[in-house]
């Protein structure tokens, strides 16, 4: 058994990798539902780094921040999916390229 334990740096690097995958997903994918999933990936990456740093500093405040992030993420998904439902009802199979109605 290897006696090396993953340090905070490992967790932060994993979080950075997850965040980058989420960013690439937001920029590449065109389905609005999948865009929201990629935003969830980014939020989870940030949550992971919050918890890792909370453990390193011995501060429970990082974990309470993650709790609030989860609440905001839930509210964001609910409102976002409401908008997506409203758009997709009007235009079935719309992609993000079709949502240029607010363009000035």
């Amino acid at each position, binding site marked *: 058994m290897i006696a090396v334990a993953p340090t905070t740096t490992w967790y932060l690097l994993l979080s950075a990798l997850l965040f980058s995958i989420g960013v*690439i997903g937001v920029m590449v994918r065109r*389905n609005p539902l*999948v865009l929201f999933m990629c935003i969830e990936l980014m939020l989870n990456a940030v949550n992971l780094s919050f918890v890792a740093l*909370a453990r390193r500093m*011995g501060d429970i405040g990082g974990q309470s921040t993650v709790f609030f992030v989860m609440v905001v993420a*839930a509210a964001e998904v609910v409102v976002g999916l409401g908008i997506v439902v409203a758009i997709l009802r009007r235009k079935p199979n719309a992609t993000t390229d079709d949502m240029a109605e607010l363009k000035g």
Partner: protein
Amino acid sequence: MELFVFVVASAMILGGALGVVLRSHPVHAALSLVLTLFGIAVLFVSMEAHFLAAVQVIVYAGAIVVLFLFVIMLLGVDNAEDLRVEPFKVQRPVAAVVGAGLLTMIGLAIIASRKAPVPVVTQSQAVQDALLDPHDSNIKALARDVFSDHVLAFELTSVLLVIAVVATVMLARKPRKGDFVVEAATK
């Protein structure tokens, strides 16, 4: 042991994340998202954030992904998107460059600051007492922190949730007769 957990959970997280981005079918993407969220819950447990691990499974995997799947089911948008279609030719190279650049910058910042001194954080007495508790110290300390130091933020989240619920009901219902509807937008 923690290394083994970390490696397995990282494989789950990254495999699920790549699945979200690369699977063309939205249902498959949502199920890959579940894999990622469970991997993060495993890491939360290994970092002794037990309450957040439970909330992660219940709220994210239990509520949010189910919400995604409900929307996919109710709208019938479960047809696969053809990922070979590329409306903007420069989109994917630019996305790859931006993503790789972001990863490089964040990674270098993390590696450069790994030896930085850890700042001393003084927590309130209630949290310190709770952390010494032999049973459920994490959830007790978190509760003391949320309900004493951040109680205003906690109350504001309830306002936020009410606003979100009202907004969603307004967005999702069909307009009835007599409602104010902008006609130009429906054309």
